[in-house]
Structures are given as structure tokens and as C-alpha cells.
């Protein structure tokens, strides 16, 4: 795979595109959530999705993670279309993507270390030792080196979420999906998780798609902010501009309510 050439960052070649939504429609019954949605995310780009509740932000991430299927249209990851593929080929597409959930979703039947090592061992075929080494490095990164042998149920929400971030990163995804990863946390635990994500954004070139209500965090890490409403992107731009001089009326209203 070619590495991203900064000189070509503006011209969208197929190789440098991490995610493409091409005329994607998602309906639940006759309720249209995504209405011929088009957008692209370049490799290494950090994109924040904002929009009112119910505008389909979670749906977008779930479609990418193959937890839902598109009704119409095509989603591409690294130039490969994957919507509508059978399970075997979906697994090939999923390899590039990791997701962190609002409710952490750690496995209660495994200790913290095993939560992080299980998939690398089972799915990537790493040896237990390699996987454990990788997991300990990641636990270090998220500030939980001393919690390897603890049950996840014994951790605070913030600690659980940091383990979940380590678990997703252990699979070395190119693309990390973050769905309101701090909104289930007590306010005093939010900062620790955001700091970890800032570190990751700085230390790696992983592509990030992030749904958040933390506008300060969005401003810090994103290259681009996409505003959703009515199943489409109604406005996008760099955070400085989006937050200071939004063009669209709905964006102004929305930001006025959350900022």
C-alpha cells in the first residue's frame, strides 16, 4: 500500500481515500436515516461528525463497522467496496477498521489483558506472548499498566473505556471509529479518556472518524468537521472555521446549543 503523500493530499486519488460513502441510503422501515449520503475521508485524516440527535451519526459508524447493512449505495474502505458482501469477504474489509463504543463493551468473561490479547491471538494469529507484549505496551499508553490482571467489572467507566481503546488499537486498524466514547462517563473521568485519544492522534497516523459532543476535543484533533442533518452532510470544513463562522443556519443553531 502506498503511503499518503502530503503533496497530493488535496487531489483525491483512490489510494489515499480511506472511506468513501457513495450515494448511501439507510432506511429503517419507511424511516430514511441516510438519504443519498456522499462523503470521503482521506487516509490519516481526523474527521468529527456532528449533528442533532437522530441525524444518523451512529448509523454511519455502524454501517462502516458492518454492524448494519446499507439499503442502497456503496461504501468503500481503502478503495474496496464492501457493502453487501458475504460474511467471509466482510471479514477482509473489517480488518482495517476498529471501533470504540459508547458503553465500552468489554468482555466480562476475560481479564483486562485477555480482553486486549484475545482477538490478536485468535484473528491475527499472534502468539500469546507477542499479543501480551503488545497489550502491555498499549495498557502503558492508556495509563493502565497496573490493571492487566483485573476484571473489567472492577474498573471505573473511564478506565474501562481506556481498555476498550487499547483493545481496538491492538488489532492495528487503519481506521478508528469513535462513537461518543465519553458520553457514558462521569464528568471527572472524561478528560483522561480524551487525553489518551489526543496522544494517539499525535503519535500515529491512524484515520479517525469521531462522533462527539466534546467540541474542545473536536477542535483539537480534527482536520475536518462534518455537520449532518436530514440524512446528508450540510456543511463541512476545518474546525476553526466551522466553530467560528458556520455558514449554514442549522449548523449555527446546533453549535449555539452545544457550545
Amino acid at each position, binding site marked *: 500500500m502506498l503511503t499518503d503523500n502530503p503533496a497530493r493530499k488535496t487531489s483525491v486519488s483512490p489510494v489515499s481515500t480511506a472511506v468513501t460513502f457513495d450515494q448511501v441510503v439507510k432506511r429503517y422501515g419507511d424511516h430514511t436515516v441516510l438519504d443519498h449520503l456522499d462523503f470521503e475521508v482521506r487516509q490519516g485524516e481526523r474527521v468529527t461528525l456532528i449533528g442533532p440527535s437522530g441525524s444518523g451519526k451512529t448509523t454511519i459508524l455502524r454501517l462502516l*463497522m458492518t*454492524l448494519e447493512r446499507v439499503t442502497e449505495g456503496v461504501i468503500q474502505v481503502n478503495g474496496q467496496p464492501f457493502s453487501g458482501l458475504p460474511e467471509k469477504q466482510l471479514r477482509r474489509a473489517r*480488518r482495517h477498521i476498529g*471501533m470504540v*463504543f459508547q458503553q465500552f463493551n468489554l468482555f466480562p*468473561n476475560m481479564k483486562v489483558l485477555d480482553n486486549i490479547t*484475545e482477538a490478536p491471538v485468535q484473528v491475527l494469529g499472534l502468539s500469546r506472548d507477542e499479543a501480551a507484549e503488545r497489550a502491555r505496551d498499549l495498557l502503558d499508553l492508556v495509563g493502565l499498566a497496573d490493571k492487566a490482571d483485573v*476484571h473489567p467489572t*472492577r474498573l471505573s467507566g473511564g478506565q474501562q473505556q481506556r481498555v476498550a481503546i487499547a483493545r481496538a488499537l491492538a488489532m492495528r486498524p487503519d481506521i478508528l471509529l469513535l462513537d461518543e466514547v465519553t458520553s457514558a462517563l462521569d464528568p471527572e473521568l472524561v478528560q483522561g479518556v480524551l487525553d489518551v485519544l489526543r496522544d494517539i492522534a499525535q503519535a500515529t497516523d491512524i484515520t479517525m472518524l469521531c462522533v462527539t459532543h466534546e467540541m474542545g476535543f473536536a477542535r483539537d484533533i480534527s482536520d475536518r468537521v462534518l455537520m449532518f442533518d436530514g440524512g446528508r452532510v450540510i456543511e463541512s470544513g476545518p474546525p476553526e472555521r466551522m466553530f467560528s463562522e458556520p455558514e449554514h443556519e442549522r449548523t449555527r443553531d446546533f453549535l449555539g446549543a452545544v457550545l
Partner: protein
Amino acid sequence: MSFLTAFVRSLPSIWDGIQITVLATLLGALLALVLSFVLGLAARSRHLLVRGLARAVVEFFRGTSLYVQLFWLFFALPILGFKLVPLACAVLAFGLNYGAYGSEVVRGALAAVPRAQWEATVALNMTPWQRMRKVILPQAWPQMIPPFNNLLIQLLKSTPLLSLITVSDITFQMDQLRSATGDTKAAYLVLLVIYFVLAYALTLCMNGLEALGKARLGQGRA
């Protein structure tokens, strides 16, 4: 001859009877356990045909009496040219009947694992088999144990049917003692106590398994 001397004298055959009863219970339970999982997993299959077949098998064996199933295997099957030893008939009947009930236990416990857990396994790109084995089943099985325990005890209490198909289980042996001594009260009282002790021993084992499973999930006193 007093009941007590007759009882002591027939202890060896009572012991044989207990062994037969326990053996039939355990073998029947083992087959039932395997069928519970096969049918319970099949009931959640993506394929309509597999689901339908599992459903049909479960409904058939739940909906027909164990007594009749056993008699069918013992009396009717030989007419078709398949003759099984009586104990095998019993194990098969117990396995099929309680396996049908057990599959509902498995299905319910699997369905009770939060969907979010399944989503996390998808996000980690596990195969369906890895999801089941590493994440879903370990979380489901502590929930299965109390209902499995109920079924196991019911299975134990169904085993007197063995004495109707010529197997010398504990009920058969105590019945021998009853007719030899004529002391119906004492003989059946001893029989009640024996079944109670066996059932209680099974419950203790199952409680241990449940505690173990819960400790693994970080619940209870880990």
C-alpha cells in the same frame, strides 16, 4: 425377618441399583446436554431450514410423553429390526426428551447475552465460531446452570421408568425388598430418601459449577 435385617442383607443389590440409576442419569444427561447445544445453536442459525428442523425436533420430543418415547424405543423399534439393550433405550429417550427442553435453556441464555457483546466481537473481526466460543458462550453458561439443574433433577426422577423396561435400577431393587419383607412404608421411605440424597448431591455439583462460571465473569465472590 425384620425389615432392617433384610435391608442390610440386600445392601449389595441396592448399591447396584443406585449405580444403575446414577449411570442412566449421567449418560442421559450427557446426551441431553449435547443435544441441548446442537438444537439450541441450530435454533439461532441464519438458515431457515436449519432453524425449522431444530424447531420441529424440539416440539416433537417435548410434545410427546417420555413414557411413550421410551416404550416406543423398547417395544416398537425391535419390530423394525433395531434392537437396543434396555439401558441404551433409556439413555436415548432421556437424552432426546430432556435435550429438547435443554435446547430452550441454551437458546434463551444465548439470547440474554447483550447484543453489544456480539457487536464488540464483530468490531474485533472474530469469526462466528470464535465469537461464540470465546465471548458469547462463556457469558451464557452460568445462566444455563440453574435451569439445567432443574432438568437434571427431573431426569433423575424419571429414571424409575427403567424398572418398567427390565432394568434393575434402584426403584426395581427397593421394590424387590418391599415384596420380600411386605413392609411397603419402610421400603418406599428408604427409596424417597435415596432419591433425595442423589438429587441433593447433583444440586451441590451444579451450584459449584455456577459459582465457578460467575467468578469468571467477575460476579459473586471472585
